[in-house]
């Protein structure tokens, strides 16, 4: 058998390395009905893997995540509602396990801060722009005043 030329070997190696991260992808779980399957998928995407913390249960290859998926599957098969399953995990791991934290007193600032910052920013920007415009208009009116040499001097306003 002919040996592969070095370039092709290099390319194949690079390709193999490229797909390596997907080699340990999560084995898909089959639920008995499409409805259960959809709920299962939605649930595992909504929970954080507590070990890796920045991945969902759906994407995490660690064994704790596999156990949690098994727990979710068992609870779905036992007829639990999504709400009950969410409560089960939140009561044991805290809100941290939810990728989308609920709106409660403890997390209010998390949800409100962007809006508050946006409103504050818009209002102060509007205020500054309007003041600048008013100053510019005042400057224009000043132009024909006797004794005004037309040279802008800093620090005259206010």
């Amino acid at each position, binding site marked *: 058998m002919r040996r592969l030329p070095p370039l092709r070997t290099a390319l194949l190696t690079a390709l193999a390395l490229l797909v390596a991260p997907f080699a340990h992808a999560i084995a898909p779980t089959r639920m008995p009905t499409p409805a259960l399957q959809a709920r299962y998928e939605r649930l595992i995407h909504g929970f954080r893997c*507590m*070990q890796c913390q920045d991945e969902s249960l759906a994407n995490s290859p660690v*064994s704790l995540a596999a*156990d949690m998926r*098994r*727990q979710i599957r068992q609870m779905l098969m036992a007829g639990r509602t999504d709400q009950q399953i969410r409560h089960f995990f*939140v009561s*044991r*791991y*805290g809100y941290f396990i939810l990728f989308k934290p609920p709106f409660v007193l403890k997390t209010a600032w998390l949800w409100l801060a962007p809006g508050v910052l946006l409103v504050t920013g818009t209002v102060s920007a509007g205020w500054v722009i309007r003041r600048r415009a008013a100053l510019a208009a005042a400057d224009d009116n000043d132009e024909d005043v006797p004794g005004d040499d037309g040279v802008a001097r800093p620090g005259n306003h206010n």
Partner: protein
Amino acid sequence: MKGRYLIPLGVFAVIATMLALGIEQAPRKDLVPSPLIGKAAPIFSLPSLANPRKLVTSAQLRGHWYLFNVWGTWCISCRMEEPELLAIARTGLVPLIGLDWKDTRSDAITYLHRAGDPYRKIAFDPGGLEAIQWGVYGAPETFLVNPQGIIVYKYIGPITPGAWTRDFLPRLPAAHAVAGS
């Protein structure tokens, strides 16, 4: 209107303080506080590690203080913690109940035979679903449970002699008798 110039400075101070607090807390980010503290410990009934026909149950532990220690032979930090667990067992203050998590029976028995066994009882959880009941996300984790079955305290990571004196002893009723041990 001179004070106007202080507004951006104030905004900057607020943001800088928030970021500083964030950095301050960053190293503890891995320690997720447990919502189970102050709540009833899970009710369980699991096979014993030493004898699969025997059960270790929460009912047996009612009326006693106990430490519920989640470990496994695969867990390096648990091996580091082992000498301190043996020391705690020697004080006789509070029994250690082990949860052998995602382990094999033979590995665990061999390991305890060699390193010493600090546990009063060990429940066996090869599938890992019991650990989820306790909100465990790594090993070792140790829960202090009171006679009413309430989780009083949770410690994440290997217990050090310092942590034992600082975090566990003051929470135990008989602590004053053996303070500093």
